[in-house]
């Protein structure tokens, strides 16, 4: 039995199955991160000795650099998907490779940030601020790591599908990009 709407979108919704699935997943992620950000706000307003300004030992420039890396990786990810839509597999390989490398750069910068915190004796148990800081940024780093694993599969062995079922492969890359 063939499962409907695996490749072609359903007529009334305009969506294929995996796109519904990824949006449901993203909705659950919004709730997960929403709960964590709510916890952050509640912990902050309820704390009598919150850390402010330089007391946090945060490196604004490393954080800014990582934000720029994430925005750039979003661009290369979309370009990878658009390349498949435009039937340019070679460009897909280049853009997807760049996306994976940018993910790696993000993780390296994050490692430097964490290393500096540990060097200054800041651990999750050190202060409420660091507890929520490591929870939020650590979960986000895991999210990036998951994306890197999935994208590496699309770039490597998973890309064989382009020869047998190009529309489905393009859909898969779009789902990875939405993640």
């Amino acid at each position, binding site marked *: 039995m063939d499962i409907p709407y695996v490749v072609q979108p359903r007529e009334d919704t305009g969506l294929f199955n995996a796109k519904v699935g990824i949006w449901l997943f993203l909705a659950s992620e919004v709730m997960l991160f929403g709960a964590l950000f709510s916890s952050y706000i509640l912990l902050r307003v309820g704390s009598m000795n919150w850390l402010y300004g330089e007391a946090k030992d945060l490196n604004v420039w490393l954080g800014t650099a990582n934000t720029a890396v994430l925005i750039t990786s979003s661009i290369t990810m*979309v370009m990878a998907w658009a390349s498949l839509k435009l039937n340019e597999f070679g460009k897909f390989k280049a853009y997807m490779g760049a996306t994976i490398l940018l993910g790696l750069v993000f993780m390296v910068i994050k490692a430097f940030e964490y290393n500096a915190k540990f060097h200054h004796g800041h651990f999750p148990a050190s202060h409420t601020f660091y507890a929520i800081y490591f929870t939020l940024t650590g979960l986000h780093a895991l999210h990036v790591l998951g994306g890197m694993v999935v994208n590496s599969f699309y770039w490597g062995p998973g890309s064989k599908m382009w020869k047998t079922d190009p529309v489905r492969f393009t859909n898969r890359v*779009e789902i990875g*990009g939405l993640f």
Partner: protein
Amino acid sequence: MSLKAFHIVFVAASILLAFGFGVWSLLDYQDHGNTAELVGGLVSVLAGFALIIYAKAILRKLKNISYL
């Protein structure tokens, strides 16, 4: 919503972030006179303009791809 539509939302948020961070950094420079904040602020504002140009270019490139 397709990756195209989501990307446009993401780029719009990035433009706001770039200008917001740029203004914050330049205001901080006014208070403290730190050259790094001046450079960071200017680069961030320039990045905001670059993202606007990019958004226009990507919309042109993907004009035949659905938003769904």
